[in-house]
């Protein structure tokens, strides 16, 4: 397996992304991938679709990959 070695740095090497859900900030560790077209998703692209619901739309196939209801 061809990977880059992980070095001990002061910065975390895990990819993190931040989603704003209402007045909360949710930190997403790792990588989100659209299951149908394999494109990487960005949690910052999470949008308010009303009724306290937040959705993450795949930019390539425009499918609703993830939806969260904030209560």
């Amino acid at each position, binding site marked *: 397996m*061809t*990977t880059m070695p*992980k070095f001990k740095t002061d910065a975390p090497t895990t990819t993190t992304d931040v989603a704003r859900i209402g007045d909360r900030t949710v930190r997403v560790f790792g990588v989100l991938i659209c*299951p149908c077209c*394999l*494109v*990487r998703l960005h949690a910052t692209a999470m949008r308010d679709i009303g009724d306290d619901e937040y959705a993450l739309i795949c930019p*390539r196939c425009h499918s609703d990959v993830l939806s969260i209801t904030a209560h």
Partner: protein
Amino acid sequence: MHEDGNVRTLTTRWQQLLDAYKRMWETVPVDADGCKYAPVCDDEMPGYLGRLVGRTVTAAEWQAAQRWEWEQIAGGKIVAAPPHPAEVSVRIDDYQDALRRLTSCLVRLLGHPPITNLAFADYKYNEDPYWLHTLGELEARAKLMLEFAQQAPATLYVMRGRLEGFASAPDLVMDEATRGAYRATIEALDRTQAALGVPLAERSRHFEMKHVRGAPVPPPEADPELQRMSKDELRAALSDTRTRLEAVETEISRRTSAAARALAGMLVSAREPLACQQPQEKTP
């Protein structure tokens, strides 16, 4: 972000490229250990993604997704990076996989106990290095074929791209002889690429005879010196490409027939010792 002096002295264009590459690198997923997978050509990436997503992911699908992402990021700024279209590289991958499988099958076949016993029994009784020699030669030929097949399609593709790009210059006018040479070269390329399993590329307008015959005379505002220069260059490039292509074709046929002959010889002589081995075993 880039505090390095070397980076800061780059021009805006290079800075753009650098940013694009950096953002591309950030799109490469990270596994549970925090290691980044190598981009596009990693063979294990589809399997990894398939386990993540829960369905079968093909290499073409993964490459298409990666390409789409990179197009979004780079926005056409990077022109030198993609070497060939997806379907071509997929076909080349298929071809190389087939050859790799052939080689592994051959190696497994040679590791099969009856065959090994046969070969090495013969070697032991006769004190004859013939079998070892044959097996080694066969393996060497398989490796050569694999290596050649790994390099040939890409080389041909690049050569063809250069040739077609050269011939598709808007102000280029070919005479009858040059067009004939061009046609012959393109046909030879077609034949070779078809033999290698690479799909045929788009042909330029110079390939069509009837189309070019009715073509208008060169526009008067075109620089005649430039035209003469490009014609000479084209002729030189054509003869060079033709020579190389003939060499490639000769090499392909030579290696194929040599490997077939070696295989046939091995199979024939694999049958012969069986017949003459039993009396040998009975005599002591």
